[in-house]
């Protein structure tokens, strides 16, 4: 009976009050924020009425500018105006040198693996730049929803590897957002369409959906199955270096050839040709032919000619579609819905070819620029608890295989691509020298055989292995991927009973201390701001913990806890409540920690009881069957 008295009015937030949640599409070129209001998901506009925020950040002596203003200044102030920063997320300096020539920035010398760009207001890294974009969108969300956000779903390309996902999550943390989930962009698009479609009452049948996402620089294909509100990603594939920019390049090359300009063109000419190419491509959506001229050359580009130029590129995307279908054990005829995402799917020829390949007309009724943010908003609304649980569940997959380096520089895959997450896989390795006491573990991601061709995610050493003869040690390496697609790795020597364990973060990720330091930097040494923010964060954490505990106790506290346990928990909760109202951030944190530890057995019992219930429900179903 004490249960009902735990919640004292005014001390914890009302559990059923509507939460403020947004979906954010953090794009290479443009970003958006969307939310669900009165049952409809919509992109939120800025004061000027525009929903799109160009993903451009400009650093000046007097401050930071994000969006259209920054983009307009890109030409005049190229070194301090950072565009397409998403391409640098989760990348090391070496990766960037790879395509560095296209970027005008001054890169500072290596700072712990992450590249830093010199600007007038100091060196900044891609995570910080992305955080500036997120801050603007978060503020827009908070203004529009009338208060601090409870959480956000942020979308990432399906092909993003672990380091890129981690960097995105770090940027959100730096922007002060609580990330409910990282969601793959194509999955978000499917959600935006999928829920629409169930409104006609046709949700009884399973449906197979293909999401064809062609952006400026990347192509993504995902095959999903929708069944009673469960979106199951069956497979995903694509090409991280193929997009509308390549269309422009193909057309520009054609112009150069027609105009007899040769192949050795300076950057200025190239830029002009690309702009002309892009304009012609867009004009052909409405016209049969467009007239073009460059210097003393003039000619015309027809739809037919454009198709001829683009077809080899589009065919590449269709091959990726075929591979994804095969990974899902399906063929094109099995696909019942095709969804188009990304600005480059506005090109007519792309629509024709996609329609031809799947044998059905693709959906494009939701603005391809907004569809991802809208899907993310729908998912955020569910995760934050505004919707009933039956509504929607997304089962996503890992896009690239995760492996470990073995002898001879070869990759051994522990988790294969397109495995549904969360997932945990363990494998045993052994020592190859007598008396070996340490083992180097190199975590890689990719499909290739050679480690050198895969992406290196992390290296660490397991030390303290008791000396044994070669081959006697049993080192169990476990890879665990959570629902965001983020990896943690554990290694343990178990044969001797001695256990050593380590959990790693990716090479280009940030340590928590880095994030704290960057937060401090961003407050420009305003001590009280930092303290205020830390206190507020601790209080939010306390509220969340208390609320979760209250709900848990109401659900089955009486059934699963003895009176002594119950009163202990209540005391700990009371202590936390008091700390929440009067204590410092540190005090609150240690109370949260104490309550979490104390409630561990209760959490385990709750899980066991759910499992039992789920099993029982099933057995009863079975009896009903003839």
């Amino acid at each position, binding site marked *: 009976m004490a249960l009902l008295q735990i919640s004292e009015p005014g001390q914890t937030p009302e559990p059923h009050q509507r939460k403020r949640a947004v979906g954010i599409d953090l794009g290479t070129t443009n970003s958006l924020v969307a939310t669900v209001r009165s049952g409809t998901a919509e992109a939120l506009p800025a004061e000027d009425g525009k929903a799109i925020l160009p993903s451009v950040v400009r650093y000046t002596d007097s401050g930071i500018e994000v969006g259209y203003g920054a983009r307009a200044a890109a030409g005049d102030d190229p070194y301090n105006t950072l565009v397409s920063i998403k391409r640098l997320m989760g990348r090391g300096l070496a990766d960037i040198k790879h395509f560095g020539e296209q970027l005008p920035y001054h890169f500072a010398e290596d700072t712990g693996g992450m590249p830093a760009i010199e600007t007038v207001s100091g060196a900044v890294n891609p995570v910080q730049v992305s955080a500036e974009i997120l801050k603007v969108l978060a503020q827009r969300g908070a203004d529009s929803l009338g208060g601090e956000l409870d959480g956000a779903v942020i979308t990432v390309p399906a092909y993003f590897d672990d380091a890129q996902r981690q960097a995105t999550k770090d940027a959100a943390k730096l922007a002060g957002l609580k990330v409910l989930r990282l969601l793959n962009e194509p999955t978000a698009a499917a959600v935006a369409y999928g829920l629409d479609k169930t409104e006609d009452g046709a949700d009884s049948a399973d449906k197979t959906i293909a999401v064809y996402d062609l952006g400026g620089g990347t192509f993504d294909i995902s095959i999903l199955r929708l069944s009673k509100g469960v979106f199951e990603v069956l497979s995903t594939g694509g090409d991280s270096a193929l997009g509308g920019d390549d269309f422009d390049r193909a057309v520009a090359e054609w112009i150069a050839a027609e105009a007899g300009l040769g192949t050795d063109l300076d950057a200025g000419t190239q830029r002009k040709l690309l702009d002309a190419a892009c304009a012609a491509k867009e004009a052909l959506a409405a016209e049969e032919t467009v007239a073009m001229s460059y210097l003393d050359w003039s000619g015309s580009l027809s739809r037919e000619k454009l198709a001829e130029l683009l077809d080899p590129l589009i065919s590449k995307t269709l091959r990726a579609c075929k591979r994804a279908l095969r990974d899902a054990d399906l063929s094109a005829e099995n696909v019942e819905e095709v969804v188009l995402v990304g600005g480059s799917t506005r090109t007519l020829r792309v629509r024709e070819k996609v329609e031809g390949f799947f044998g059905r007309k693709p959906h494009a009724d939701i603005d391809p620029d907004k569809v991802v943010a809208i899907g993310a908003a729908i998912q955020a609304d569910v995760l934050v608890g505004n919707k009933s649980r039956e509504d929607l569940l997304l089962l996503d997959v890992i896009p690239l295989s995760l492996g470990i380096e073995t002898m001879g520089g070869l990759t051994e895959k522990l988790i294969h691509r397109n495995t549904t997450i969360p997932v*945990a896989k363990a494998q045993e390795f052994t020592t190859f020298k007598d008396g070996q006491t340490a083992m180097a573990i190199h975590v890689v991601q990719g499909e290739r055989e050679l480690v050198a061709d895969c992406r290196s995610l992390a290296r660490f050493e397991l030390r303290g292995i008791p000396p044994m003869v070669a081959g006697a040690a049993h080192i169990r390496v476990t890879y665990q991927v959570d629902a965001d697609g983020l990896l943690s790795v554990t290694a343990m020597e178990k044969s001797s009973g001695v256990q050593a364990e380590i959990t790693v973060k990716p090479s280009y990720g940030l340590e928590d201390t880095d994030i704290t330091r960057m937060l401090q930097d961003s407050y420009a040494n305003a001590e009280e701001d930092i303290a205020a923010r830390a206190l507020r964060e601790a209080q939010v954490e306390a509220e969340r913990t208390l609320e979760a505990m209250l709900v848990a106790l109401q659900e089955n506290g009486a059934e699963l806890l003895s009176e002594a346990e119950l009163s202990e928990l209540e005391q700990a909760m009371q202590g936390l409540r008091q700390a929440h109202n009067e204590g410092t951030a540190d005090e609150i944190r240690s109370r949260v920690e104490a309550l979490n530890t104390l409630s561990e057995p209760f*959490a385990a019992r709750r899980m066991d009881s759910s499992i039992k219930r789920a099993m029982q429900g099933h057995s009863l179903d079975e009896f009903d069957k003839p």
Partner: protein
Amino acid sequence: MQQNHFEIFGLPVGYQVDRQALAKRYRELQQEFHPDRFAAKSDREQMLAMQYAAQINEANNTLKDPVARAAYLLQLRGVERKAEQTTADGAFLMQQMMLRERLEEVREASDPEAELEELSAEAAALFKAQEQAFSDALAANALKDGESALSKLQFLAKLQRQIEELEEDLLD
């Protein structure tokens, strides 16, 4: 949570699996235990949910796949096998070699697609026969025979993958 993969889905332990029941039950369980369902719960419960959801996924992947399912059934009976063991059945090996030779020569055939289709159908029939052999061996608790059938299933699965890859190459 000490359940075997079949118990998780409430399915009878055996080689024949009702794929539709598995898929349905899989979605029901994920509806219940996916970490998204615990987004508002305590950290500890989120962690437990992630672990259990991972276990459900692992079980589903094993039971869905005919080769992995066979290996798992042997494992439940105490037979631990190395990743890919070879078979001692000479006649089977000879047959495999001939199939592979035909696969290599598909490109030169007068109608490569028809030839590939024929190969694919043969491989599928052989696979089915070995599935039956495995199922029978398991029912009779003839574990050695079961291991032998599993090795052959692995061979044939690999052949089928190669056929698919060639199919993709040919279509391009």
